């Protein structure tokens, strides 16, 4: 099953322009084109402005509450041509799932090594062909010019293949930048703290890095979760670190093996807290334990909810766990699945885990459930939780099992479920069996209006306080990233290479696409399409085509819109 990465963001670039790709030379004798040599910067480019910008986007979601909004920037472009309106473009590998993060004049992206920046990272085959070696890469670019500055190069976990380190996925973690340090999780299931300057200013911290060219990463500390904690990462380690004070929080990716039923290391932690200066573990939890369904690729979130400071981890068992940040003491937990849900590696399964990340907003927690996209869509749920109590605050409690193994449940007096959207859709003219499908996305909440997209391409607009559903729009393409708010608009990118831009409305109109009376399916289809046209006319601003699928979230920082396709980072400004 494919590794699942929810994150999506951008990168900056520098190197070869795309036109260069076209200028390939054939070698007819071998029937294969000669490998392109990528221009390689031997020197380093200093970030033009190393100071924090007015609206840097320094981590997944921009802030520790992970809400996908930018409330500062104005005049963000919404109708443009990607190729001609970009202020710069940067070549990435062939896949890019980490970032972009914009901090201190630099832009950070997680990608693969399909376009090596350093000739060292190529190999020569027995046939004499030059081919890139598969590696995990964090590329760092100059925010103003897009020029390449430095990169972190991490070897693959040799031999493990798809089990731990899926081929060619690169680094899927969105880095977190704080001051002069950047933190990320590698494809090797290690947590890295690195110098934002790279190796160019000398080697600080540990000095046994494998790669030490001037454009290589300068690692301060690196913590190996497989070696030290016996973690068994499923497919890929992808967590986007969270920093609160001096503590860094990371989900470990512990999961099932390639057989998809056995959890080889149920005692290994799923969540860890570390000293951000040293990488020393402070506390850890294996709360999901043997109930992990698949892997764990979501991200922790921080919030002060009704005055209670807490770090919330999404568990691979479909539960949210809230902890005291300093001690790891459990504050509350919430089961995001119906008790009778059944897990299957296919669309028919009704039990889910998390790919999207929880958002803390207005003393509440928002999250939708999902699965590895390889398992297709299926019935999903979106939750708003108001955690005012402690312990198990799920909607119901399981009190036992029937003789045939079905759960017996009762309402939970401590339930903190504020509202729920999803479940089965029974209306006659619905084209599917459920209201809300599995999601890989994280919520975007602004003016008490919530936007959440599904894997199957539908964007929902919902009242964040009440759960009232206003409208939905079908992009007809898979969505791995999230809706993102900036400058009165919602940006949403898809697997079919498009960036969709919608108008944000503080008081949205309720347009229910099944609110009609029809005699037959043909008529119902016509009426449903009319409703969809109403949504499009009212809320769609633009659909902008890019050069490759976009499996990331477009973000805005310091007045610039960054769109990261799987192979190129675009910086676009009005």
């Amino acid at each position, binding site marked *: 099953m494919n590794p699942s990465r929810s994150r999506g963001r951008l990168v900056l670039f520098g190197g070869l322009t795309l036109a260069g790709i076209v200028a390939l030379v054939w070698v*007819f004798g071998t029937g294969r084109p000669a490998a392109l040599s990528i221009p390689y910067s031997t020197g380093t480019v200093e970030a033009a402005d190393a100071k924090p910008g007015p609206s840097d986007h320094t981590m997944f979601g921009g802030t520790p509450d992970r809400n996908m909004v930018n409330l500062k920037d104005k005049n963000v472009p919404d109708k443009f041509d990607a190729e001609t309106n970009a202020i710069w473009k940067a070549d990435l590998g062939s896949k890019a799932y980490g970032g972009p993060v914009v901090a201190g004049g630099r832009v950070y992206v997680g990608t693969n090594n399909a376009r090596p920046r350093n000739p060292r990272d190529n190999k020569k085959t027995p046939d004499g062909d030059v081919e*890139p070696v598969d590696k995990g890469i964090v590329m760092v670019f100059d925010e103003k010019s897009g020029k390449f500055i430095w990169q972190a190069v991490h070897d693959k976990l040799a031999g493990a293949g798809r089990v731990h380190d899926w081929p060619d996925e690169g680094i899927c973690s969105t880095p977190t930048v704080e001051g002069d340090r950047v933190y990320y999780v590698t494809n090797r299931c290690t947590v890295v703290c690195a110098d934002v300057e790279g190796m160019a200013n000398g080697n600080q911290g540990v000095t046994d890095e494998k790669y030490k060219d001037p454009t290589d990463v300068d690692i301060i500390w690196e913590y190996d979760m497989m070696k030290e904690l016996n973690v068994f990462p499923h497919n890929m380690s992808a967590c986007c670190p969270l920093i609160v004070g001096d503590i860094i929080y990371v989900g470990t990716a512990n999961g099932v093996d390639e057989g998809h039923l056995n959890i080889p290391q149920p005692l290994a932690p799923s969540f860890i807290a570390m000293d951000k200066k040293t990488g020393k573990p402070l506390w850890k939890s294996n709360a999901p334990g043997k109930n992990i369904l698949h892997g764990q690729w979501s991200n922790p979130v921080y919030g002060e909810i009704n005055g209670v400071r807490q770090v919330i981890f999404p568990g691979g068992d479909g539960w949210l766990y809230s902890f005291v940040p300093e001690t790891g003491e459990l504050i509350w937990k919430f089961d995001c699945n119906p008790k009778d849900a059944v897990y299957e590696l296919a669309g028919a399964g009704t039990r889910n885990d998390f790919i999207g990340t929880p958002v803390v907003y207005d003393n509440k927690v928002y999250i939708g459930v999902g699965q590895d996209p390889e398992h297709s869509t299926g019935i999903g749920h979106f939750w708003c939780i108001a955690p005012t109590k402690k312990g198990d605050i799920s909607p119901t409690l399981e009190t036992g099992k029937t003789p045939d193994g079905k759960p017996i449940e009762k309402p939970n007096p401590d339930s903190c479920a504020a509202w729920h959207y999803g479940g089965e859709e029974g209306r006659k003219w619905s084209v599917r069996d459920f209201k809300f499908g599995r999601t890989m996305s994280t919520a975007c909440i602004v003016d008490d209006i919530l936007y959440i997209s599904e894997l199957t391409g539908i964007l929902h607009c919902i009242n964040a306080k009440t759960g009232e559903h206003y409208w939905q729009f079908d992009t007809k*393409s898979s969505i791995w990233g999230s809706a993102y708010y900036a400058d009165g608009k919602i940006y949403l990118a898809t697997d079919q290479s498009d960036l969709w831009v919608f108008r944000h409305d503080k008081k949205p109109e309720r347009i229910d696409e099944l609110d009609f009376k029809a005699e037959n399916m043909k008529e119902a289809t016509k009426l449903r399409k009319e409703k969809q046209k109403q949504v499009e006319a009212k809320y769609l601003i633009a659909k902008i085509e890019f050069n490759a699928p976009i499996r990331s979230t477009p973000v805005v920082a310091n007045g610039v819109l960054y769109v990261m396709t799987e192979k190129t980072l675009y910086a676009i400004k009005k």
Partner: protein
Amino acid sequence: MTPRCRPRSLLWLLSSLCAVCLCRESPAADWIHWRGPEQNGHSREKNLPDNFDPTGKEVVWKAPFGGRSSPLVMGGRVFILQGNGAAGAKEGERVVCLDESNGKVVWEYRVNVFHTDIVSSRLGWIPLTADPATGNVYAHTTGGLLLCLSKDGKLVWQRSLTEEFGRVTGYGGRIPAPIFDSGLVVVPMVSSNWGEFARSGTRFVALRGDTGEVVWWHDAGNPVKDTFCSNPIIAVINGQRLVICGGADGYLHALKVRTGEKVFSYPFCAGAANGSPIVDGTLVYCNHGDENPEGKIYGRIICVDAAQVDPKTKRPKLVWDTYNRPYKANRNQPLSVRFGLASMALADGRLYAPSDTGELYAFNAKSGEMLWKVNYAREVRGAPLVADNKVYIFDVQQRLAIFALDGDKKPEVEEYRIREQGGSYAETNGTPIAVNGRLYFNTGAALYCLANPGAKAEPVKYNPLPEEAKFDPSAKPAAIRIFPADVEAKAGDALKFEVKLLDANGRELPAKADAVGWSLPTLPPAKEGAKPPPPLKAQIGGSGDAATVTLDKAPAQQGHVGAKVGDLSARARVRVAPRIPYTQDFNQIPDGVPPAGWANTAARFAVVTKNGQKVLMKTNTIPAPPVAKANTYITLPSATGYTIEADLMGGEVRGTLADMGVGNCRYTLVLDGKIDPTTGKRTVRMGSWEARPPSGRIGKSVTFDWQKDAWYTAKLTVEQQEKTAVVRGKVWKKGDPEPADWTLEFEDPSPNREGAATLYGYISNITDTQPGAEIYYDNVSITPNAKK
């Protein structure tokens, strides 16, 4: 498992000479290759439905046999391989035969699934193949059985590819299809076994269609990038009859059908090449959705000219590909598109290529020019069917898309949602077919037959394969082949081998080989993998084209038989597998060597001296899944009615113990190395096919807090009853008296009737720099059950 008979049938010889190809010479009303008579996804049927309503008049019949592949239609019957839909112990896979006219079941043949990590929702992804001359249907099941079923649903023969040849399960259920041609069933696979096949490789085996005997093996020789699911096709190019298929090595491979000799190969993917090829004249098309060997962007469609093969590199000339060609519609950039898990179609000079992410591209097949692109889906695994000027293709997410083609112009497309009764979410991974005026396809829940009301099927004509080069009975032999090419025998057997003289197309020449130099050779050491086995302990006799190899009394061994005729040479593989009763204490085996006669053991297990004691050790330095988790297959898979007992010991590394166990008739008794977080103790479990939590198709587990560095004895016995099997296992600390009670016991209502005796090991904590936990085995004993 072993072939029933071994006659040199005249029919088979004739079919080999005449090149009976299911694809071309079958009646027009058959659809045998999953992509149709021209193997390109193009049906020439007319007047097919242009819309779909699951409850509409266009549904001729619907049968509750969901699946992920496409049906096969032959002789008025429809055949499909699919998961049988039952949960629990009755879950398995079956070939279903239905009456084409009304969808009524004629027969079904069910098998268990075993020795695989593939889960139940992924069953039935492998297209069938058939021999229209005999009506035999061939199925490659998820558990690795290759079944030959007669037209009335009786088993003609079967092989267990996993247990006999070390075939590796595909990832996520995607496994390449077999193909029947020229009297042979050719099966692509990733395998690793013994001798020169110890290394994991993309391999093709050809079995006689009538007996299941091995005619040839082809080893592609390149590193395996992944398991793969390219389905092969048959072509005649430059007068040569070829089987063409993608490989786990990222290559497109073309082999002579009758011999497996390489004609050309073309590397074009950094991962596994999963697309199924298409041939038009001398042009061969294939697709992939992984990274490219040269880097930069992923995905590629290639068009190569197989008439222009470089004699030195054996690579065909590239005509065009999407990697290098600038596309105006893509701002003069090459295409970065996942043309990965769905295969293409070719019709009327246009190549239709679906991306995994739901766009259908149409290209001018000769030039590679993009004609149009339409977004129609979110997630695509099935291939397009072009028929009646329409394209039918599924979105996995319960939608059928129907395109109304309009020459080179971008077509209109309509989506039809499929809501199955009962509201279950049934994915649509299948590929539609059209034959006899009807359209057939699988959803996850059902098999549909559609037709326009009142429409009558018109005869249609398909282009036959080009003629092969004319057969010249007096031609100088171009190659020789030993038949059979791979034999499983028992000690003392007198094995008959023949040398065949072949023309350049692999056709048998009437002349008999004389002056054949027969030998029992040792192969030179391979660059990687296990040491080659010593020469067969046997006497070889005979002259001319036939030889008798009389094996000596060694209870188990492997080796080769060689033949030389002038400059031409060939060899065959011989395995003498242990027979029951059998004991093995490893005392006579040098360190570093696997026990003789065992399959799937080299590189995965080896004898070591531990504390002065000779034992077998599981390899704990290679994290690749087929090595980290492995069964040895000690006996042949036909073994039944026996008990296996062995001593096992686990060593702790980084706080972790591995899983270790023994297997009997496809049931496994496992000492689980992990500690249950609830009890704080380890467990022992026993079952078969861990497809669903918590215990697989059938199984049980119990707390048994075994400890590191201590020997335990495990005993597993399977008692076959009339309709069930009683499976019993026990574990005790070595040296303690054997407990009277069984540790675990269950009765299987869907019993495995036979299966190789195995040792099992799974080390989950091997990293690229550190060895994982250790497993040792000793004192293996396999004994027949007492007769009652």
